[in-house]
């Protein structure tokens, strides 16, 4: 076995070779090459992050909705601390000496040599005073940051708020580090990538006292921060403000869209909160208080509340019936203060009878539309209810109900339009028919529609048959185009000629005099078209609903108003909608009596 003894020389050779190579390399690194020596020679490198200002958010007319304010974090580097005048220190910063000791201990445990945050977001006044005296407190320095500020205290839900990034977000996107800010809801979140800009980096050489003595490699590895892109939202600040003002005493929402573009002019939710509450240091506490409030001010009703649409849905059923040809505009149905079939009754209020289509809309006749719905579901061209129902459902979905509209909000909801399998599950396949689901005829029952979807319906009717996906941002700085999907017309499967009839009906509903369910919305100089709704509420007073658009020809605004526990649509929702329309179209309110009426809110004798 020892015949290979000669190989020991080879092994020895390999070992010596490696040793030699390493020594030569070390000689080169340590003695010959001076660049390493220089860069480390009592100078050490420090990477400083440069935080960019976040993009601003404007309204459609160029008013600033969200601004930036300078804030300052007080940082400390424990290894550089020397004894200092704690009393003076505490006086400037308004903290106790115990706080100081605890904080110093905390930061020391975190890292003795690396700087960390000592006090977050001291005010600029404090900063100014501290600046002057900073030489007395070695080891402390200030890192500038920016916080959001809201010049107009409106649209908290739509704008969203900014907070510190959490671990999950850091995992998903390595751009973020602990302590960075990120948008958490609303536009701040959906357009986070555009708003945040790009962090910059500066690598500096520091001496033993952590003083900057130059830039590393001539700044070769530095890059400057890129300011975030500004965003122009579709909101009209004046309108939004007015909407929030009108809804003060109510719970519910207003959604207003420009039908010709799908731009959201206002999105009001009540109760809401002042966006100031969720800025900076106070945010954590305030958020807790808001989230525990039983009225749920953090909940964005306009986008996420799902209600049954009530009588406003009659427009949809009417259109489907006209398209399917099961009725014509001249078709009349009798109403005996209700619709009767065997022992089933669908109640209705008192009005002229029989009515044709247009007047049925004006009077919002339940019997008429129950009949209409019956005709849709018992259409002989379908072999059974299920088929007819699915056909009907397809139309409904094409209005944007029961599905995501595809807006640029992050927490849009689909709403709910039951499929035939839903009823199969409850009653058994083939064991339900039009009578079982009759409440769908008048927008009650198992329908869940959000206020934004309702406003979209109003826009569809205003446009006579199509809509643009509602969106809340119309432009991003430097980029002319917003996402393609917002400039596409989405046609509903109904011919526009049928829409004219519905428009007529909605005109009469407001301006038709006797029998009109929405007379409170009437304006003298502009033709407002609207449809009331009253959603049944088993837990209390019915909800007041109204959809409208104006002017009748070439509409510029389509709204939906929802007032919880507001009774008939005409009582609150209609006047609110009308005022909102007037404010948008004319910028002044001429019917101050109406305004006063709304502002008084729901009182006990209504």
């Amino acid at each position: 076995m020892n015949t290979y003894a000669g190989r020991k020389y080879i092994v020895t050779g390999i070992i010596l070779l490696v040793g030699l190579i390493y020594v030569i390399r070390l000689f080169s690194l340590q003695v010959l090459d001076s660049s390493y020596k220089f860069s480390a020679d009592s100078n050490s490198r420090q990477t400083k992050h440069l935080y960019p200002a976040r993009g601003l958010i404007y309204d459609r007319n160029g008013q600033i909705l969200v601004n930036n304010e300078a804030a300052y974090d007080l940082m400390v580097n424990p290894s550089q601390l020397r004894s200092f005048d704690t009393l003076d220190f505490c006086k400037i910063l308004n903290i106790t000496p115990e706080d100081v000791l605890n904080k110093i201990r905390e930061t020391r445990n975190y890292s003795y040599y690396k700087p960390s945050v000592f006090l977050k977001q001291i005010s600029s006044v404090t900063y100014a005073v501290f600046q002057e005296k900073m030489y007395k407190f070695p080891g402390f320095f200030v890192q500038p940051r920016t916080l959001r500020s809201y010049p107009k205290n409106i649209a908290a839900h739509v704008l969203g708020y900014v907070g510190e990034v959490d671990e999950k977000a850091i995992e998903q996107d390595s751009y973020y580090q602990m302590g960075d800010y990120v948008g958490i809801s609303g536009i701040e979140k959906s357009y986070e990538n555009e708003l945040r800009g790009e962090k910059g980096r500066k690598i500096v050489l520091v001496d033993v006292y952590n003083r900057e003595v130059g830039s590393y490699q001539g700044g070769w590895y530095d890059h400057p921060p890129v300011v975030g892109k500004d965003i122009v939202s579709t909101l009209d600040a004046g309108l939004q403000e007015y909407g929030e003002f009108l809804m003060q005493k109510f719970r519910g929402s207003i959604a207003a869209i420009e039908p010709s573009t799908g731009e959201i002019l206002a999105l009001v939710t009540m109760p809401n909160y002042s966006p100031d509450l969720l800025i900076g240091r106070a945010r954590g506490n305030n958020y807790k208080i808001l989230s525990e409030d039983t009225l749920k001010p953090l909940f964005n009703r306009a986008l996420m509340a799902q209600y049954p649409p009530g009588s406003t849905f009659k427009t949809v059923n009417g259109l489907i019936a006209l398209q399917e040809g099961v009725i014509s505009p001249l078709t009349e149905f009798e109403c005996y203060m209700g619709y009767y079939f065997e022992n089933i009754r669908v109640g209705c209020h008192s009005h002229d009878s029989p009515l044709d289509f247009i007047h049925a809309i004006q009077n919002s006749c339940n019997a008429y539309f129950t009949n209409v719905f019956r005709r849709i579901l018992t259409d002989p061209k379908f072999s059974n209810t299920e088929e007819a129902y699915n056909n009907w459902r397809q139309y409904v979905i094409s209005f944007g109900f029961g599905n995501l509209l595809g807006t640029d909000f992050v927490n849009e909801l689909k709403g709910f339009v039951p499929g035939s399998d839903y009823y199969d599950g409850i009653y058994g396949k083939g064991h339900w028919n039009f009578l079982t689901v009759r409440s769908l005829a008048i927008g009650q029952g198992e329908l869940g529609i959000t206020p934004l979807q309702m406003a979209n319906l109003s826009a569809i009717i205003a446009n006579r048959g199509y809509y643009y996906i509602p969106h809340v941002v119309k432009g991003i700085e430097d980029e002319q185009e917003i996402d393609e999907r917002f400039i596409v017309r989405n046609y509903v499967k109904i011919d526009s000629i049928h829409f004219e009839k519905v428009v007529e009906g909605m005109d009469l509903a407001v301006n038709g005099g006797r029998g009109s369910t929405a007379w409170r919305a009437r304006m003298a100089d502009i033709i407002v078209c609207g449809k009331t709704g009253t959603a049944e509420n088993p837990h209390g007073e019915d909800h007041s609903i109204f959809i409208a658009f104006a002017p009748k020809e070439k509409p510029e605004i389509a709204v939906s108003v929802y007032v919880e526990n507001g009774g008939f649509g005409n009582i609150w929702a209609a006047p609110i909608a009308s005022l909102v329309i007037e404010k948008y179209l004319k910028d002044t309110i001429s019917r101050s009596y109406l305004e006063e009426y709304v502002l008084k809110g729901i009182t006990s004798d209504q």
Partner: protein
Amino acid sequence: MKRRTSLVKGIDWITILIFLLLIFFGWLNIYAAVYNEQNHNIFDLSQRYGKQLIWIIAAIFLAIVVFLIDEKFFFFFSYPIYGLSILSLLVVLLVGKEIHGSRSWFEIGGFNLQPSEFAKIATSLALAKYMSSYNFRIDKLKPVMTLFLLVMLPMVLIALQPDLGSAIIFFSFLLAVYRAGFSEILLLIAVVFAGLFILTLIIDKLFILSGLIIITYLALWFAERKVRYIAGALIILGIVVGVIFGLNRLFNMNMNYYYIFAAGLLASLPMYLVYAIRKRIRNIIIILGCLLISVLFTFSVDYVYHDILQEHQQQRLNVLLGLESDPLGHGYNVNQSKIAIGSGGFAGKGFLNGTQTKFDFVPEQSTDFIFCTVGEEWGFIGTSVVIGLFIFLFIRLIFIAERQRSDFSRIYGYGVIAILFTHFTINIGMTIGLLPVIGIPLPFFSYGGSSLWAFTILLFIMLRLDAVRMELLR
């Protein structure tokens, strides 16, 4: 007793001296690496240097104990020890503690033990036992396969933890096995493939394929010296590739050029082979065989690199090969390490004066990058002394291994040398930027109980075998 006295005479004091020097110098540097002005009590157990001191004292006791164990124990129980080691590697995969994403530790009473460190000892013993057995022939396939398996088994288990760094160390047994007679040609082939491996990562596949084809043609020419073979081969290849290219265009299959060429090659290979076999031209068959294997190799390397290696591993390789230069990202460790070492200059900054290490700029500075502290505080003088000590140790160990009369002892000795040398090469190579960053400790130097004890046991078994070498015949 007669035995005892000759034991003491038989101890190789030189090795023990180097051993102690390395351990204490290592400890000194750990102290310097972790030192801060506040806690400087050397016995402070909450600091690493305090703990290391405990490990060192324990290691010395361990060394004495191991040395006093009868050598026959190691000889007879080689295989059971190996078996136990494999078992421990299996068990740690199931119930081990996970640190930094790798399930490599047993937690016993507050101490962490790494079975992979002790597996190195066990494998050395088993290899030595096997290769010194009576019927062993290194030039026969079955024994070589068994050797292969002996090493692969623990290697794979360790790689599953996952601890690729420790797994790679098992390649070091190549050195021991080489000394024991392993075929030089096979070793050469291993080197060629290593070169091909690196080339594949640097150069695009297509160039390598073309290069290989050209080399093949050249080899054919030199082997057979008949123009018609070359011409014929070229024409066939040209036609086949052309056809495939045309098909690609026709059916819009969008194959990239590499695949077209490779497919062409594969399609024409049978034709060559048939011709060669018919005419019984052995050389062509051999050359073509080599070509095929090389192509498959480059293909699989490429596949492993792109589809199996994780991103951080890819980046480490890239940084090493100069494909990527990111001093603040993945090159960070190495760059900081080089700066630290480079800044030491000729004589270093002095004990406890290392700014880079003091300010925590070098990551892992008491374990994998301990050499940086040496470089920064002791300069070129310090680093060459340390390297010198190690080289001296290895040469001394070779001397000791060669004077063994028993095959078992000699082969085991080379196992020890191989393991220590590989650790040394990779660890220091990594800190000076010559090798990719692989988490391997520097023997006797780096902080860590398991590795210190494992190396100590490894070494002292050898010293024991050496001390009684005059009596052993097997």
